């Protein structure tokens, strides 16, 4: 299935990309993270186990075991620091 994936703040800068459309053949947010980690380099580094990042699906923050629906807007970003 096809997903739109957005990156913000430090992760956007590290990945050198703000958004992309990608083919996703997994089920959960964890599957998507694994797919991105497989790109190696900065992707594997920033999305490694133990690194702090958040995943939002259709603009709601979700746990990594949440399923991702087709055509979803997924965002991956560092812990928030507003206020």
């Amino acid at each position, binding site marked *: 299935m096809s997903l739109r994936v*957005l990156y*913000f*703040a*430090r992760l956007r800068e590290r990945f050198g990309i703000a958004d992309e459309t990608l083919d996703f053949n997994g089920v959960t947010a964890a599957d998507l993270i694994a797919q991105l980690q497989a790109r190696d380099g900065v992707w594997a580094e920033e999305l490694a186990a133990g690194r*702090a990042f958040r995943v*939002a699906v259709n*603009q*709601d*923050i979700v746990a990594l075991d949440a399923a991702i629906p087709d055509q979803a807007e997924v*965002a991956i*970003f*560092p*812990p*928030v*620091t*507003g*206020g």
Partner: protein
Amino acid sequence: MNAGSIKPGSTKPGAMKVVVQSEAFDLGAEVAAISHTRTDIGAIASFVGLARDHNDGSGVQAMTLEHYPGMTEKALAALVDEACARWTLLDVTVIHRVGRLLPGDPIVLVAVASSHRGEAFAACEFIMDALKTRAPFWKKEETPAGERWVDARASDNTAAARWDAP
């Protein structure tokens, strides 16, 4: 809505304003906007967060606030809805700025109106604590050593967790 259109004794909630903007805001004007059409409000608690000139042992010359357009407004509205479910509130205003800010500039405003102070104070603090951990904003600071992204603080998670049901 015209002044006087709400009858005395009414507890109809106000507009519940949630705004993300680059422009500055005026606390006095926002508080006046909450109360100028009604006389049932007994308390307005407000919080204004400012850009500091120092953080983590370093001077800060400026900061830039980035956000996730669409999700930000949705997340802030959800926090306000939660506060309204938890306390009896008459109106809430949340304004958060984005873009480049200088030390001393206002960043965020939360104003909460209720019949009595207890609910206004509590809801105002709840909204700020929840905003700090759930609204998608990120700060990047300009320091003498260069630019750096601000790391999330464990103390913010602790503050937000105080409001979780036991």
